């Protein structure tokens, strides 16, 4: 069902945990639907120097969070903004169709953490918009299945 990469990131997730005094924190998902991702960013000079996550969810949710943190660690904010859910899924060698929403959650968690950073610091991030964080959208990809 899952690729080896997914299983590896699920069993040995990278960057689990919290960052005290994180510069940006984003939480998406909701417990009713069975998945919550919380992402912590440390940002210095526009570079994501550290990232941690906590996730309540299925194997692919955990693996997606882990992979997402790997993809943005050490990257600039603008680079992080380019990470799409597809990129996360591809980096995991694919996800089952019904699990694609997990990668969407990961993308959203990054963006929400960046938004939080933007609000806290006043640093403008192009392409970020409060209104996009609507939980109902997160499962749309799944619904298409």
């Amino acid at each position, binding site marked *: 069902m*899952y690729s080896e990469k997914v*299983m590896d990131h*699920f*069993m040995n*997730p990278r960057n*689990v945990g*919290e960052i005290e005094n994180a510069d940006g924190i984003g*939480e998406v998902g909701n*417990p*009713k*639907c*069975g*998945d*919550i*991702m*919380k992402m912590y960013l440390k940002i210095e000079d526009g570079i994501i120097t550290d990232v941690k996550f*906590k*996730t*309540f*969810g*299925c*194997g692919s*949710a*955990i693996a997606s969070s882990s992979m997402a943190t790997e993809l943005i660690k050490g990257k600039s904010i603008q680079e992080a903004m380019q990470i799409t859910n597809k990129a996360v899924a591809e980096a995991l060698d694919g996800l*089952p169709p*019904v*699990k694609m929403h997990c990668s969407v959650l990961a993308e959203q968690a990054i963006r929400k953490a960046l938004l939080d950073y933007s609000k806290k610091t006043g640093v403008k991030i192009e392409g970020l918009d409060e209104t996009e964080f609507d939980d109902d959208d997160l*499962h749309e990809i*799944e619904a298409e*299945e």
Partner: protein
Amino acid sequence: MEKIIYMDHAATTQVRKEVLDEMIPYFNEYYGNPSSIYYLSNFSKMAIDKARERVAKAINAEKNEIYFTAGGSESDNWAIKGVASKLRDKGNHIITSKIEHHAILHTCEYLEKLGYEITYLDVDEYGMISLDELEKAIKNETILISIMFANNEIGTIEPIKEIGEIARKHNVIFHTDAVQAVGSLPIDVKDMNIDLLSMSAHKLYGPKGVGALYIRKGIKIDPLIHGGAQERNKRAGTENVPGIVGLGKAIELAYSELEENTAKLIELRDYMIKSIQSRIPDVRLNGHPTKRLPGNVNMCFRYIEGESLLLSLDMYKIEASSGSACTSGSLDPSHVLLAIGLPHEIAHGSLRLSLGIENTKEEVDFVVEKLTTIVDRLRQMSPLYEKKQEGK
């Protein structure tokens, strides 16, 4: 294949050696079509006859009240649609419960589209229907009551005999989905006033793809599969002879060993429940503490999600199941867990370990040990647990 610890007997079981041994000759030695009239066919005819007798005996039915099908789902569909179609001039109301298997629920939903009215009875926190509510739900148009014998997820055993009495009193046909009960619980269709009863071989160490429907003499239902004259004109299709032989052998074995196996399983089950409760905090036993299937352990582990639990167990080749939405690819967790009143986020974190006769205390110990580590690991990762620790 690597060695596994199989604790998902409610999903399916392996075919026991004694059962498979009896089946084998019917594939390529006694392969005659039972409907034919020649020598070769006598063997398959007699084999079906013997299996029918064994199944009948197991539930205290008569031989000619047993009709073979392709499994539990077909039996369920046949019972419900067969009554609905046969009695549509008499009424259009069916009573069932909220915790039935999808083979019942989705069939009922289909009938709703055709103009039937369905009452889905609530259950209490243990998964028990209320006899009072059942009786109140009966009206003139009621043609069928279908309540499962024992629930496949949480193991709760319904008050079947009492339901049978109520149904009989009001002259309504009573069907029970006994797929989880047959082979695990004593069943007496006469004493319990059961009119229709579904079973499936693969839940009792028989083969997949074969089951039976008990139809009490005198109860008339329309066929689901029309065609040839097999099963006394009630269920068409060349008989799955090896499968039927397997069901017969499996059910006979199950009931000859029932007492012994039940005692063993209940001990193992309660030992496992206690071990988990004593080692892992924030757990909840789902289902009834005593009126439950001998092998059923179903627990919720707060702050974590069921699929990730299953995957982690599978890393140790421990095979179990969950009512998690993620295992089914849907959004909502098990309808059964919601029906017993669990909030979504707790229902998402359920684990079902269904024990079988080959499981040992050592396996249980191993599983509980691994489970303790896994639950801890996943909680450390969980933002919900974090909140709880922070006292939120």
